[in-house]
Structures are given as structure tokens and as C-alpha cells.
């Protein structure tokens, strides 16, 4: 592979990174919202969210991306393809993150909640100062694991015509007629990205275990 091929490859990696990055950030926040909403046990909403999570867990990313892509033209406004990609990844990862947050809420130490109440905290202060900081740490290993799954399914965004790190290898091959080098190079970049997250997950695990002591 020559320099141009490498530069093209990095462009693909960048597409994968920023689309995934935005979706991860949105999905973590939205997942928290869904978890809190589900916890509130509002009849209709809670049933709806239950089905949302159950169905999205079973829907392949390719199918979800395509679904949004082919139905978007029926909406009254023009939607950029990157928005469709981000929407699909976010809808997917939110469902998984909601489950992670919900289990963190459900297993949060009752005793610590009592200590906070006894110290005169209102629910808001307690959620912000005592629960959320700890839930961020205890949920981090799960959230990071979900980030790796998201990146592994991100090649599906090629369905809307975005040249992500996987799809870009086709473009390079179209010029060089040698498919193996760009695919292997792309694989190496995935290993770097996901390997870094796996390492982060181990560190997060260590901190989460400390909190539990």
C-alpha cells in the first residue's frame, strides 16, 4: 500500500471513530434516561420501553440502518446520511446501555441511600452527589464493553453510503487491485481501537471492584 492508500484508510477510520463516538456519547446519556424512566414504572411508558429494548436487542445493525435509510425519504425534511447512521447506532446502543444503567440503579446500596437521607439529602442531591458518581464507575466496565460491540457493528453504516473503515478497503482495492493489504491494515486499526477499549475496561473493572469493598 502506498501513502495515498494509507491516507484513504485513515479517512475511513476517522468516519468510524466520529460516528461511533457521537453515538456512544448520546447513547450513554439516553440510556440513563430510559433506565430512570423504566424505574419510575409509569404504566404505558414502561411497557413501551420494555418492548423497545427487547426488539432492538434482536435487530441486526445492518437491518436497522437500512430501515432508517429507506424510510427517511418519507419524512417531510431532508436528513443527512450521517444523521441516519448516528441515529441507528444510537437507537441500538441506548437499548443496551439502558439495561446496564438499570441494573446499576437496582443494585445500588440501600445502606448508602439511607446514609444520604440521614444526612439530610433530598433525592435530587442524592442522585447527583452520591448515586450517579458511583454508578458511573460501577457501570463503566459494562458501558465500555458495549462500546466495543458498537464499534464492531459500526461497519453497517456503509449501508447509507458512508465509507467507514471496512467499506473504504473496497475503494482502495478498486485502485490497487490488491484486496489483502487494505483489509489487513483495516483489521490492525480495529485491533488498536477495540484493544484500547478492552484495556480501559480492565482498568474500569479494577476501580469498580474497589468501590464494592
Amino acid at each position, binding site marked *: 500500500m502506498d501513502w495515498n492508500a494509507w491516507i484513504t484508510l485513515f479517512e475511513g477510520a476517522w468516519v468510524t471513530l466520529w460516528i461511533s463516538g457521537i453515538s456512544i456519547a448520546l447513547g450513554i446519556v439516553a440510556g440513563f434516561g430510559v433506565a430512570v424512566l423504566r424505574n419510575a414504572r409509569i404504566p404505558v411508558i414502561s411497557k413501551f420501553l420494555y418492548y423497545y429494548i427487547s426488539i432492538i436487542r*434482536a435487530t441486526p445493525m445492518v*437491518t*436497522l440502518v*437500512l430501515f432508517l435509510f429507506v424510510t427517511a425519504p418519507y419524512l417531510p425534511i431532508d436528513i443527512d446520511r450521517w444523521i441516519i447512521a448516528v441515529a441507528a447506532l444510537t437507537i441500538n446502543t441506548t437499548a443496551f446501555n439502558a439495561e446496564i444503567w438499570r441494573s446499576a440503579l437496582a443494585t445500588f446500596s440501600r445502606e448508602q441511600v439511607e446514609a444520604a437521607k440521614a444526612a439530610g439529602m433530598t433525592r435530587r442531591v442524592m442522585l447527583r452527589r452520591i448515586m450517579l458518581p458511583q454508578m458511573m464507575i460501577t457501570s463503566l466496565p459494562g458501558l465500555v464493553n458495549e462500546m*466495543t460491540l458498537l464499534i464492531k457493528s459500526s461497519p453497517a453504516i456503509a449501508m447509507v453510503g458512508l465509507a467507514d473503515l471496512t467499506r473504504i*478497503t473496497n475503494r482502495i482495492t478498486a485502485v490497487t487491485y490488491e484486496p489483502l493489504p487494505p483489509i489487513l491494515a483495516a*483489521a490492525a486499526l480495529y485491533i488498536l481501537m*477495540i*484493544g484500547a477499549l478492552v484495556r480501559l475496561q480492565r482498568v474500569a473493572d479494577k476501580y469498580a471492584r474497589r468501590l464494592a469493598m
Partner: protein
Amino acid sequence: MNLQDWLTVWINIDRVALGFGVTVLFFAFATVTAFIGGCILVYLMEGRPSFLKTSLRSGLDVLRTLPFLIVLYLLYYGLPQVGIRLNAWTAGMIALSLYHASYYAEILRGARVALPQGQIESAKAHGFTSFRMYYRILLPQMVLRSGPLFGNQLVGCLKDTAFLSIITIFELTAAANDLQAVYFIPMPAFIVVIALYWCISLVVEQALRSMGRYAKHRGLSYE
């Protein structure tokens, strides 16, 4: 999204059924082969560490950090450069089995590490040869103990089959895309197809729950 559109899906239900069949076929085949492959891989890594065992382990670690589609690309687009030409179906079957075997191996290895050492010694004392010991004594326990983790893995494998549409295999997602492209009925086509994926996942979860009850019955409850 009127009645007409839904009727169009109904009239073309054979296309959907074909895609569904292909998806289930890939899913079932890959699940069986990946599971057996995972069991064999863990057996190969049994015993004292050696260079080969360590390399095998690292190889599997690498495989698990890759997206499924890049593995598929490697087999389908990459290998012809070194003279190995696989058709889409073969490449798909091999990629799906190999990729998911690495995950089953990891799940089973986790269960293997958690097994008490005493069991191996008592099995040896009863004169079990090591392969017999592995598949008669250790494997059943490892499998039953990892039950809950299989759920996510199975659904993950089901979802990965959709990537096969990218290398031109006519599976369930391709069927939906086909219908919407010909008749301009994206909503009904995709809703039906997503509902089908959902049904498969519900069946899988139900099957795992039965397996969990069986495990409990045999005194090998999860964790």
C-alpha cells in the same frame, strides 16, 4: 402504509420466507459448528502452557477484537489474492463459524477456570484419559454453568448473519431490502422482517431458559 402495502408483503411472502430460511440456516449451522469449535479450541488449550497454546489463545483474542464484517471481507475479498477463491455461501459459513467459535471458546474458558481443581484429580484417579475426562466430566459442567452468557452470544450471531447481505447472500435483511426496492414499501417490509428477527430471539431465549431449569435440576445452577 396502507392495507395495499401489507398485501404486497403477503403476496411476496415466499421471498420473505426464503430469506428467513437462509438466515435460520446460517444461524443454526454457525451456532452448531461454532459451539463445537469452541469446545475443541478450549480442549486444545488444556494442560501446561506451550508456545502453540499461547499463540492459539492470542489468535482468538485478536479475532474477538475484530468486527465480523472485516473477517468476512478477509475471506471473501482478501483470500482470492492468494489464490483461494470461496463462493459467498462458503465464505459466509466459515466466517460466521470461525468468528463465533472464538467467542464460545472464551465463554467456556471462563467456566473452565472456575471449575474446582479437585474434580480433575478425582477424574484422573478414576482412570479417565484426558479427552474422555474433558468431554464426559468437564465439558457438561462448563456448558451448563455458562448458560446465561450463551444468550447474548446466540443473539449476537443471529445479528451478524445480516452482514451476509453485503456479500450478496439473499437472507432476511436482503429480502426486506429487495421488497422495498421493487414495490416501494419500506415500512411494512422492514417491520415484518424485524418482527421475524425478534421472534427468533424470543425462541432462543425460551430455549435457554429451559436449559437453565435443566441445569438447576441437575444441581449446576448458574453461578
